[in-house]
């Protein structure tokens, strides 16, 4: 005689039925391509030299070692990610702390903050390239000319271009940090502050010893999410500079793209993308470990 399935067995079956399709789809759409990517990174696959195809072993990775453009892109990735994340968190937190003290008009600010977030990064890049940073006609040049600082080629000069793409990213995503931290700050119990005020604790001390420990988990999570976004930033830089001038704004993500789809060297591009994946995993591992330590 067959026994009726127990409650646990039925729950397991139900879970498999609900979760199975999604897991199978993820396996097909993310894990299978990952395996294919790793396989491609071991191939010599250059569409501009199709006669040179074949297994290359770790050749593509060895090539990275003495490829100055790779090291340059790695350095730019570090600068770009470090600067944009730091600026977003500092500016976002500062603004959130100040706006919290404004009795009215917070709603309007929230609407304005939503605006950059919902725009497509590629459109943001184009807006900045044409309306904000274009020499002579751009908004920034109008201001610098009015102030007597003269006109600058914000996206054409290598050093200014890097600063410009950092500014674009910071402009678009600081509202994220601002909104999340504002919402977190608003949930803190007000009586904590009252007690501190009676204790005559200064504003900085209140922030350092009361507010910061309470919002630390949110700050760490913002840093993690913003770092992931910055590491895979693409469309805004692509639209604003295309990685140029030369390779002045070519972060690793853009270098991998250009190698694969402009120079059509997909084997080496796959190796570069694998390097970016390794970097992403290493950075997120470090950040998540810090998060556990902080929690």
């Amino acid at each position: 005689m067959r026994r009726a399935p127990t409650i646990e067995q039925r729950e397991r079956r139900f879970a498999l039925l609900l979760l199975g399709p999604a897991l199978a789809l993820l396996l097909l759409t993310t894990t299978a391509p990952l395996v294919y990517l790793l396989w491609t990174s071991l191939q010599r696959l250059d569409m501009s030299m199709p006669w040179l195809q074949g297994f290359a072993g770790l050749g593509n990775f060895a090539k990275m070692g003495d490829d100055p453009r790779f090291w340059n892109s790695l350095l730019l990735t570090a600068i770009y990610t470090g600067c944009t994340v730091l600026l977003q968190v500092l500016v976002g937190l500062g603004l959130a702390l100040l706006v919290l003290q404004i009795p009215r008009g917070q709603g309007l600010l929230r609407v304005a903050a939503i605006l950059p977030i919902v725009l497509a990064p590629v459109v943001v890049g184009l807006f900045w390239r044409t309306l904000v940073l274009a020499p002579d006609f751009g908004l920034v040049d109008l201001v610098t000319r009015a102030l007597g600082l003269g006109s600058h080629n914000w996206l054409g000069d290598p050093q200014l271009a890097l600063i410009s793409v950092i500014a674009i990213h910071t402009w678009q995503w600081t509202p994220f940090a601002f909104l999340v931290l504002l919402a977190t700050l608003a949930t803190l119990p007000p009586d904590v502050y009252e007690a501190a005020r009676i204790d005559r604790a200064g504003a900085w001390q209140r922030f350092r010893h009361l507010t910061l420990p309470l919002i630390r988990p949110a700050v760490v999570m913002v840093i993690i999410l913003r770092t992931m976004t910055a590491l895979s930033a693409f469309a805004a830089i692509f639209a604003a500079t295309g990685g140029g001038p030369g390779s002045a704004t070519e972060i690793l993500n853009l270098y991998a793209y250009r190698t694969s789809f402009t120079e059509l060297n997909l084997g080496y591009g796959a190796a570069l993308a694998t390097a970016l994946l390794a970097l992403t995993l290493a950075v997120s591992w470090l950040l998540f470990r810090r998060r556990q330590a902080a929690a």
Partner: protein
Amino acid sequence: MTARRRLPRELALYALAGLMLSVWAFPVLWALLTSFKSERDVLAYPPVWWFTPTLAHYREVLTGPSSIVPNLLSSLIVTVATTALTLLFAVPAAYALARLRYPGRRASGFYVLATQMLPPVGLIIPYYLALQRIGALDSYFGLVLIYLTFSLPFAIWLLVTYFEDVPLEMEEAALLDRAGRWGALWHVVLPQVRGGIAVTTVFVFLNAWNEFLFAVVLGGNRVRPVTVAMFNFISVEQTQWAKLAAGAMVAMAPVILIGLLAQRHIVKGLTVGAVKGGGRR
């Protein structure tokens, strides 16, 4: 603190708030203004604030030879298909992850989270090669498939946080009523997470509509989302400033509208994501 000391402080705060407002809103408003200018007014120095507004650029981007209407349609198809498929797979999966007991629950949750670590550029290379081999470049199938890679893990994790908030007692009561697993899920739990499903829909829609890298590589002449079509107005020789502005306004109208209407939901979604983890963009 006396009133006299408070006033300058408040004024300073409001001045700062005004500055923030303009820094975030101004580029968009400036683009809106530009889209109504004639090409000559665009390049005027100093910039003109009062000008005869023209709808010529809007007419051109909607009905002209470089119309972006087909691109809007492409975007709509890809976005709606992605959103529908994502919800279809993510809602049951999120419920299982949040509520059911089965072996490997932690591992499966971690797996979903880990799939988000793949950088887009690392995905696009194998997709390009595979779709090229089966002749599916420039197809809705390929684009929707790769859009699922960012929308599905994100949606599952966002929804898990909402399912976790549903009180267990409600579900148990329904199960005692012999409603069965499906009945309890459909009639009791799902209505409780309607808000969460709405937030998830908004986020998936926004991300899919705004996507660019996958669209530019895997798209083509047939499937060409509107984010890619923005480059119609820019060439090496010249930039058609006002037309680009008008095109961008039309392309971004849906997301700006959703952003303004679903403002509260978006802030909540961002916060949930930020506190509990997950989400790439």
